[in-house]
């Protein structure tokens, strides 16, 4: 197992390098001169040149890349062109809001997904199963910005029992924080709930049709023991994979939801920064999202081996 993790980490190096090159290149492709964004009303060529020098924008691209990456490795992602705040600081400040929203949504989608998915598989073609199947079909097709706006329309504007957006830190007013959290969390949870419910249902159905389940039933095990001990244990392995990747994709999910609900997290930061051509911030958030996604993939692969003893990593596998 140790060797496997090590090999995966080594394989990650060229990929991580390519990821940084992609991020760097993408941001440099952006039309418009970032210095003009920062300089505001200032149009004096000498001052602009000085700013370019200050940000190293007068250097050839490979030099800029090396300087950027060496700083990045030390946790220095540069400063925001708009606010001059260090990028790392800007991200760290907003990360708690994003994590709170993302993890709440995930908790909702995993709990309900496992519960309803299981019931749905155990009572196939029952009204609940049909309802759940319909929901899984609709849930993945519903754009989250539309769902969010409908929720705001119904629960905030028409019935007025939840705020339409905004944020209060959990530490300053927990109740107010919760009130603001409900709608965005439901919005963010819906798509992953549909995916999780479907996965739980289908992998449980598959396990239930296996020979060893018949053996267990023939032994006279009670249905509850049968389902919980034998079936669920195996059926949840693929679910772990999906949920793991969903954890890695929290920032991605937050992009649009945070925008709609004025939730001051990393997702809103990146959208605002794209509009303001704030390269260093965009770069920082995109890097963070890519690396957390890569890390999640690695963790999921390792977990898979731990959870499923049939999978062995000692053989050479790709």
């Amino acid at each position, binding site marked *: 197992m140790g060797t496997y993790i090590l090999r995966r980490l080594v394989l990650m190096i060229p*990929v*991580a390098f390519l990821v940084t090159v992609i991020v760097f290149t993408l941001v440099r*492709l952006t039309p418009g001169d970032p210095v003009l964004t920062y300089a505001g009303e200032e149009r004096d060529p000498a001052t602009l040149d000085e700013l370019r020098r200050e940000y190293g924008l007068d250097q050839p691209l490979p030099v800029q890349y090396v300087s950027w990456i060496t700083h990045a490795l030390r946790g220095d992602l540069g400063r925001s062109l708009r606010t001059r705040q260090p990028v790392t600081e800007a991200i760290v400040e907003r990360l708690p809001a994003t994590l709170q929203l993302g993890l709440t949504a995930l908790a909702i989608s995993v709990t309900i997904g496992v519960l309803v998915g299981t019931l749905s598989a155990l009572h196939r073609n029952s009204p609940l199963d049909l309802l759940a199947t319909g929901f899984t079909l609709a849930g993945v097709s519903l754009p989250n910005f539309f769902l969010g706006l409908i929720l705001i329309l119904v629960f905030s504007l028409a019935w007025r029992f939840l705020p339409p957006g905004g944020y209060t830190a959990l530490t300053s007013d927990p109740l107010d924080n919760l009130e603001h959290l409900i709608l965005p969390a439901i919005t963010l949870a819906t798509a992953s709930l549909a995916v999780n419910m479907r996965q739980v249902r289908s992998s449980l159905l598959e396990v239930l049709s296996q020979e060893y389940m018949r053996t267990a039933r023939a032994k006279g095990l009670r249905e509850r023991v049968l389902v919980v001990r034998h079936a669920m244990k195996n059926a949840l392995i693929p679910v772990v994979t999906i949920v793991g990747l969903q954890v890695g994709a929290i920032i991605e999910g937050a992009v649009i939801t945070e925008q709609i609900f004025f939730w001051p997290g990393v997702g809103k930061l990146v959208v605002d920064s794209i509009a303001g051509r704030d390269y260093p911030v965009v770069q920082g958030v995109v890097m963070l999202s890519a690396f957390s996604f890569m890390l999640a993939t690695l963790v999921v692969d390792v977990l898979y081996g731990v959870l499923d003893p049939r999978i062995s990593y000692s053989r050479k596998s790709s």
Partner: protein
Amino acid sequence: MRAFLRRNPRILVGGSLVTFLVAMAVFAPWIAPYDPTLVDPQIALEPPGGAHLFGTDDLGRDVLSRVIWGARISLSVGVIAVGIGFTIGVGLGLAAGYLGGAFDLIAMRAIDALLAFPALILAISITAALGPQIQNAMIAIGVVAIPLYTRLTRGQVLSVRERDYVTAARTVGARPLRIVLRHIFPNVTNALVVQATLSIAFAILAEASLSFLGLGAQPPTPTWGGDVNYSQRWLSNLMWWMSVGPGLAIFLAVFAFNFLGDALRDALDPRLRRAA
């Protein structure tokens, strides 16, 4: 064909929905009751009913006509983006799988790097970098789709490359390109058709998200995502119809392709069939 559809009624349902959407896009100029960009302050903000079935927006433009014309953007982005991802992805997958060696190694690391990005973040970054235009949104969504096709194709090539009939073709002197196109590619087509259908659903959703963020086709071009974004300011006055029309259209289009894709998978690709 008829028997095939009778055995798989879901394909018929999904296919009809998709056909309906395509017809809406193709015949938009003839079926839209009004010009989608015609501004008429006299009839601004009319609720649904009467002469304007889906109501009008704050500039007096007919929401239904904008929804119908919006299908053109959504579907063409969906199809072209998937076309880009499909062509590059499949080509790369065939080459990597068949050639192997250094080419395979480098190509697959590049694919891994693309896969390291969450899809929507990558699409947003590429579109933002190239500039907020419809063509750039197509390119961005196409690039995001490449890895899926490359992996699918390469895996299939690896599994059939050493089969007897491929060796036989090689022995009788068939050139590599011919072997790949005539003997290997046909093995992947079913899986690719399924994947392409599902990718169109993803592409439509991604285009809607990009337009919602102002990164797609620019106003006054009618786009579903852009119109939902534009009209959300009127929600606080409980004027919901401007958002609901295009929002439901996105849902319907994504649903149609997802539904068709699932049905096709169950019918064409038994290996991928989920227990259902």
